[in-house]
């Protein structure tokens, strides 16, 4: 096992809202091994984007750290003084946003925006910055002459490549990619993911890839963490988690997406909606939507347990996982929940 570049322990992030305090991330734990792509997957609103943004410590004004740690190379990002945190930003931890259209400043040429980072944060002179910018564009497969173009002159996929080039500018150790291909069509998605994979392997990067799309996880990730209602409910290497999920939510999630090996199963939705984070249910947060929930699930939150190797899951019925998987594969199991949650 390689070293762990990022170790998130019991992290909690709360938003102050009109109705009170909402814990978008509530006790999430996750280890990111160096040199891998770790997928962070879950429905929208499960806290995955909040978690990703918390790692940069650039959060909306109403968000605050409510507990836990995020150890980056041994240092807790959450308690680092702001000046030191700022030294880490982009040099060590870079970010690829969801929509490159809105995340590039419309009034500057992309070359200028690259230079801003290379000179301002990387301390290069303008000549070296220029050479590095051309090199970066080469790496992501864009002609260097397009450095003189404005963001709106690029197509969606090209803009995403620009965003990746920007993220790689200073040779960071960790890249957080927040839904980097969500806004793109399937063919372009694949091109961008291939590019990302190639660069990650070539540069030995550690990547956290936030996505709602299990097929993206299966395509590029080495490891995956499944988030539900602000918590990591299952984590492990991709093959194990996707083929032998131990948490019913992961089972349901796999059913809800087309299979990657091409086997055409029936897509089955998970009935119901994620819980209200202002007043989460006691016990397991997935229990109200879980076809296998028993009394214990509704009373007590399940602890995270190791199943074997690095495969972890938080479920009371983890011992019966094999049997549950078989039942979860059937459409009726989930369809039966339709009335219960409604």
């Amino acid at each position: 096992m390689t070293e762990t570049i990022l170790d998130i322990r019991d992290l909690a992030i709360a938003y102050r809202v009109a109705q009170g305090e909402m814990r978008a991330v509530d006790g999430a734990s996750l280890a990111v091994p160096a040199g891998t792509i770790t997928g962070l997957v879950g429905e929208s609103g499960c806290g995955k984007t909040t978690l990703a943004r918390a790692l940069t410590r650039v959060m909306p004004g109403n968000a605050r750290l409510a507990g836990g740690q995020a150890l980056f190379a041994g240092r807790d990002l959450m308690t680092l003084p702001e000046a030191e945190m700022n030294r880490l930003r982009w040099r060590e931890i870079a970010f690829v946003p969801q929509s490159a259209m809105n995340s590039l400043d419309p009034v500057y040429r992309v070359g200028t925006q690259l230079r801003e980072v290379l000179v301002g944060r990387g301390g290069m002179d303008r000549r070296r910055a220029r050479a590095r910018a051309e090199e970066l564009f080469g790496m992501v497969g864009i002609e260097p002459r397009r450095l003189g173009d404005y963001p709106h002159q690029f197509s969606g996929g090209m803009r995403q490549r620009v965003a990746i080039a920007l993220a790689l500018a200073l040779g960071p150790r960790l890249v957080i990619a927040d839904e980097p291909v969500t806004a793109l069509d399937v063919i372009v998605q694949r091109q961008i993911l291939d590019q990302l994979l190639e660069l990650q392997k070539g540069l030995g990067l550690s990547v956290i890839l936030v996505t709602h799309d299990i097929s993206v996880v299966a395509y590029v990730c080495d490891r995956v963490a499944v988030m539900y209602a602000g918590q990591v409910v299952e984590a492990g290497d991709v093959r194990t988690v996707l083929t032998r999920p131990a948490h019913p939510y992961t089972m349901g999630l796999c059913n809800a997406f087309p299979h990657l090996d091409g086997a055409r199963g029936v897509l089955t939705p998970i009935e119901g909606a994620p819980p209200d984070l202002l007043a989460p249910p006691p016990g397991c947060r997935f229990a109200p939507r879980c076809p296998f929930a028993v009394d214990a699930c509704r009373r007590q939150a399940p602890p995270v347990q190791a199943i074997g190797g690095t495969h972890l899951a938080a479920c009371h019925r983890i011992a019966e996982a094999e049997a549950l998987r078989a039942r979860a594969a059937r459409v009726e199991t989930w369809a039966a929940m339709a009335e219960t949650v409604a």
Partner: protein
Amino acid sequence: MSGMRQIAGRLAQLVFVLWAVATILFLMFRLMPGNPLAAYIDPTFTEEQQRILMARFGLDRPLWEQYLIYLANLLRGDLGDSFFYRQPVFDRIMELLPNTLVLTFSSLIIAYGFGIVVGAWLAWARGGLAERIVIPVVLTTRAMPEFWLGMVLLAIFSFWLGWFPAGGTRPPGAEYDSLLALYASRDFLSHLALPVLTLAIYSQGLPLLLMRSNMLEVMREDFVTMARIKGLPRWRVVVLHAARNALLPVATSFAIAVGYQIQGNVVVETVFSWPGLGRELVNAVSASDYPLAQGAFLMIAAVVVVMNLIADLLYGILDPRVSHA
């Protein structure tokens, strides 16, 4: 090349609007009750002398013929002769225009400089005490009659404290070699101070409020968040990214404000006896010097229309999404 066609279209619109305004003005002046030459004609003039005068001003011809002559003259820049000054209106206007422009631009530059900085700062410090104090004050300045503000400043700083002269552009009797020498003189600046202050106080509200609301909007944009995630210095995020983007509509509004100010100068120039286009219009209308009034009005309208056009074009130049489409 659609850009060129768009510009051509806007130019055609500009010509159309100017023609329409000139026509409305012609009709107003010709259809008004009474003899347009009433102010010019001495009661002792004989009928023969009056007829000669009417002929000299072309007023004996049918209306449509007068109209065509009027348009033809306009195209040649001939606005007729002032009754009062007995000199070409065009020359008179050109004498006064620089005074008006100096007043307008110096006050607007101050107003925009102040408004942009304070507006950006307010957005930055939003929700604080500053906002609760500054915004009502700014709304109040927008609600003031400009000439009243001028009166108050005049009463305080000129008549009471005696810091500044009460009106005009120069001390009585002072002569200067050239316009430039006048504008560069200390005397001129002390005469300029109060009218500029009046106009600047009145005008700063628009850029300030506009800048503030744009900034608030831009600061919510992803690229501002990204700039922070990049670890860029705070000032860079605020000034070079947020403010730079928020500035686009404010810069455009500058051109519109020039046009707006030129028409509003009418009252402030009168308060401060500032020899500009606006005051001239008021005097000409009072003295029934209709060629001069007509000329001053047309000049002001031309500035308004041209500035509106410049505002449109400026936006295209400043926003790469338009200029590099």
